[in-house]
């Protein structure tokens, strides 16, 4: 482990910069032309991570720490939140960022551990398929949600949130 690139050594600490050309070839999974995609992905992991701290912590705070916490969560609670476009937008952003961040992280892990080309292809295909389905499903759920459901006779279902009283009739 002595062949180091002295140019890449950080002056003050003497830590070699990561990825300074010392990667064992058995870990190299793709041709170098993919470089700029990997760079964008690297930045995205950090930017989305920072945003997700706020998005997720507020999500957990509003759903678990205030009001009746875990006991308050039911259909009417979700209806009440999504009646507000701010929470619709909040959940939409959280859904997309968390899924893309998580999917990219899983891609890294598959690249690390699956050594056979065909195994990686399979695992990543399954990953991308699952992620696409979840992102589309979650997006549709937010935008097609109907809080004030009625039965055939037009009366409000008992699970409907209280604000529906003023909407229906």
């Amino acid at each position: 482990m002595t062949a180091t690139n002295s140019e890449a050594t950080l002056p003050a600490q003497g830590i070699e910069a990561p990825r300074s050309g010392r990667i064992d070839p058995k870990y190299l999974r793709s041709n170098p032309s993919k470089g700029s995609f990997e760079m964008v992905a690297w930045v995205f992991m950090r930017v989305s991570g920072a945003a997700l701290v706020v998005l997720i912590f507020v999500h957990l705070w509003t759903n678990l720490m205030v009001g009746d916490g875990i006991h308050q969560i039911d259909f009417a609670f979700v209806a009440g939140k999504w009646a507000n476009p701010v929470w619709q937008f909040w959940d939409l952003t959280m859904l997309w960022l968390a899924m893309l961040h998580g999917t990219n992280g899983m891609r890294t892990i598959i690249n690390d551990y699956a050594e056979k080309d065909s195994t990686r292809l399979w695992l990543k295909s399954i990953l991308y398929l699952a992620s696409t389905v979840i992102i589309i499903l979650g997006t549709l759920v937010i935008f097609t949600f109907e809080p004030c459901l009625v039965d055939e006779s037009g009366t409000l279902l008992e699970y409907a949130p209280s604000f529906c009283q003023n909407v229906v009739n």
Partner: protein
Amino acid sequence: MPCDDAGKVTDVTQTKSTPGGRGTLYRGREGMWSWVGHRITGVGIFFFLLVHVLDTSLVRVSPEAYNAVIGAYKHPIMILGEIGLVGAIVFHAFNGLRIILVDFWKQGTRYHRQMLWAVLVLWFVTMVAFSVRHLMIFFEGWEGF
């Protein structure tokens, strides 16, 4: 500063991973264990999120279906599961911020180890507060099995 007389490394990291040495930023010791923890929590949260979007999508099936499934989250075993989940998120989040600081902050590589201790202390404090509040709310509204 990193080196005193005779070039002995006194700072938190060492240039090369000599056998029995102190490891590098990534290999061995804290750098590696925090990475293992980050990876495991990341995978766990990912699978939770897949299930979580599926259970939330039940609001489009029927209120009864959603309430029935979400009711499971109020079972005592799930309460412990939620504490575990939040523990994973909080670690991944705080350690993620530490990774970002190591990458972008000028002094980041120098203090990566101290920052890991800060992550663990903050994690502990946050988790004590969260668990106390979550359990208190749970016992207040619990109607028995």
